[in-house]
């Protein structure tokens, strides 16, 4: 097996794209996990479709390069089939906040032990810059006709909090070290975890300056305090001009879905016997 964690696939992200930071943060976390004894074979990354999804080609671990919007549903199936796996989803904002929003919310509701890293570049990157549910209200891609007004974003973190998400963090691609820590923490958290990652899109929404002026790590924030989490998550609404908190915003341990819903497996012989028994009993 190739021991390197980056494949030979040609990288086709734009220069300056925030995806590089996410790729390397995830890679570093994985290397760390393996050093800590997690078998490399038990780590699975599920990607959506979009610029972000290419990470599946670049990371030399087991990956499922899935559908636009469906990564979380696929990942749920994987985790249920084998709860011993460490399942990480890399998804886009178009991917998981538009096309696949329901799967994200239900993953939170179920509290399945999966980590979703949202590459939130706030545009549809791969299809050339249309607006997403987290684009700034004033951002007009090519699909919004002239003459119509803004379509303000929603705040995905608030929605996630209300959906029962037990771990919520916000990272930023120009804070790669912190991002790495957040991803590690999210993966280690038992239960569903989301790292909304503000990602620079060099081609369509290159707003590093905007972020750099506003991001901060809230001092003394207690992520176990739900109300505090709500407050901090509500500070910036993904549209206007407000401080943008980075870090672990909320954390709560709860029983996981795969723990609650997976039944004890039987082998094929036992199942065949059961079928026989059922038939016998029906006489």
């Amino acid at each position, binding site marked *: 097996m190739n021991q390197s964690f980056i494949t030979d696939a040609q990288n086709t992200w734009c220069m300056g794209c925030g995806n590089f930071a996410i790729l390397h943060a995830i890679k570093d976390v994985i290397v760390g996990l393996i050093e800590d004894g997690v078998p490399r074979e038990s780590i699975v990354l599920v990607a959506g479709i979009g610029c972000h999804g290419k990470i599946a080609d670049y990371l030399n671990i087991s990956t499922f*390069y899935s559908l636009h919007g469906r990564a979380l549903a*696929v990942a749920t199936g994987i985790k249920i089939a084998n709860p011993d796996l460490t399942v990480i989803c890399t998804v886009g904002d178009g991917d998981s906040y538009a096309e696949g929003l329901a799967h994200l919310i239900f993953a939170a509701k179920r509290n399945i032990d999966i980590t979703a890293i949202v590459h939130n570049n706030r545009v549809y990157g791969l299809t050339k810059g249309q607006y997403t549910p987290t684009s700034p209200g004033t951002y007009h891609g090519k699909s919004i006709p002239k003459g119509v007004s803004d379509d303000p974003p929603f705040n995905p973190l608030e929605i996630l909090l209300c959906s029962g998400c037990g771990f919520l963090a916000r990272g930023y691609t120009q804070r790669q070290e912190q991002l790495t820590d957040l991803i590690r923490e999210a993966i280690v958290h038992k239960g569903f975890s989301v790292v909304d990652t503000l990602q620079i899109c060099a081609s369509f929404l290159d707003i590093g300056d905007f972020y750099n002026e506003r991001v901060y790590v809230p001092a003394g924030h207690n992520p176990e305090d739900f109300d505090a989490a709500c407050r901090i998550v509500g500070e910036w609404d993904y549209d206007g001009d407000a401080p943008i908190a980075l870090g672990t915003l909320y954390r709560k341990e709860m029983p996981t879905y795969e723990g609650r819903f997976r039944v004890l497996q039987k082998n094929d012989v036992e199942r065949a016997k059961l079928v026989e028994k059922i038939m016998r009993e029906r006489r």
Partner: protein
Amino acid sequence: MADYSVLIGGKAGDGINRAGQVIAKVFTRLGFYCYIYYDYPSLIRGGHNFSVVRIADHPIGGRRDGIDVLLALDATTLKQHRSSARKDAVVLYNADLIHNAEGTAVSLQSIVTEEGGSPVMANTCIIAAFCKSIGIGWDYVEEILRSEVPHEIEKNLRVARRGYAAVDIEKHPSFLVSEEPVGEKILMTGNEGVALGLVAAGLDGYVAYPMSPSTGILHYIAEIAEEAGITVIQPESEIAAMNMTVGMAYGGFRAATGTAGGGFNLMTEGLSLAAMAELPVTVILAQRVGPSTGTPTYTAQADLHYAIHAGNGEFPRFIFAPGDAAQAYECAGHALRLSWKYQVPSIILTDKTLAESTYTVEPSNLPDSIPAQPMNDRNLEGLYERYIDAEDGVSPYAIPGDIGVTIKVNSKTHNPDGISTDTAEGVARCTEKQMRKLPAMRQEISDLRPVIIYGNPDAEICILCWGSNAQLCREVAGHLGIKAVQPLALWPFPAGEVSDAVGDSWMVISVEDNYTGQLAELARNHGIRVDLHIPKYDGRPHTIDGLMELLWGMVA
């Protein structure tokens, strides 16, 4: 030849379906063959429900026109079905709701109330009365009730006893030979057949969103899930169901999902994903009247071509279309097994008639066992590549956790290592690899002897049929001395076998529950002549007599 039809009718909520099952049980234990057709509108209480329990001393799989016993829990039943009851029919009715009718009156409600039972026990009461009226001894009735009634058995027995006492033995030609249990026949719905077939073939996970007429599979698998060690999930939508199923397959679960046409629409994206990623999934598509929401609780066979072509792009798949509970068991098992063997999606096409009708099954006639496709026949020496080029297109299957392997699956066109490609060679190779599976898949279907001939194999007139119509046509063919041909597998289409089975029939007639004649078209597309199509698209299956009449009209 004994051949009787018992119709029991009432309102939704009266337990008509259950009552039909109990009646069928009475006779199955005695060695008879039963078939129950259950007719109900899409609502929870009220409306008119009825079950027709057909009882015969030979294998059956459809309903006849005439009714020998009419059990009316309400006035609507009597009004709607009196005309189809024979002159000498046994008629029992609920005297609390119906007055001055011919037949035997039993005051069901009064009895139930007097015994302190719940309203639904009226059906126990009328069943007992019916048993008495055809001469069945009380002990046997009690035995059946004890085994079949899940709750409050003592109260039910009191009510039954009163019903039993309320009628005299009628002078009905008793078709009972003895009250000793005979043979090992059991009752099974099409949905249960599918479920048990999947379990027998090693199902690990079932994920489904409720939708008639497939919901019975979800309920039944959930019921036995703990004992069978099967994880059952009802997710937020059919899209989630399908993609979770695909994810399970990647994770090493033999998994299936089920739905009807409306939900299947939402699964086609995941079906195409399964194909591209070469992950085995099994989908049950239980057909009902369409387009769109259509008529949720009535039958159709109008999604065959859709099933063949669903999902963007071209890819191999298996499609099975069983015709009764035993075939459902067998086909479901093979669908799951072959999906895994070839790493392609499989579809089990059922229809409402098959899914929710109850059939007599003789377990000894079922295939010995459907071998679960083992997941550990993998040769993972050296560098593992998920899509390594294999002569037959089938690459070794590894699952995450297998020591030392990296498994990259991909919805995009990919190289053998699972990494995306868009070069001309890469794109072409990806298609060719999948298409190379087809010859072996065809052979696999042939090996199953997928085409069944009923009736007179040398007849000049041949019926072509599929799904629930097959058993009906079998009977019709028997009566008319003609031939009926049923392909059990519809894709890859066993053209040679169908062609051989049809032979040089002078006239080939397709009988299908649709407008356009989908099997007829499929056969024609494979060079098989079909002269006539008898369409049926009103949501009701043919009766055996109705179909015979139509056929006479056509061939005479």
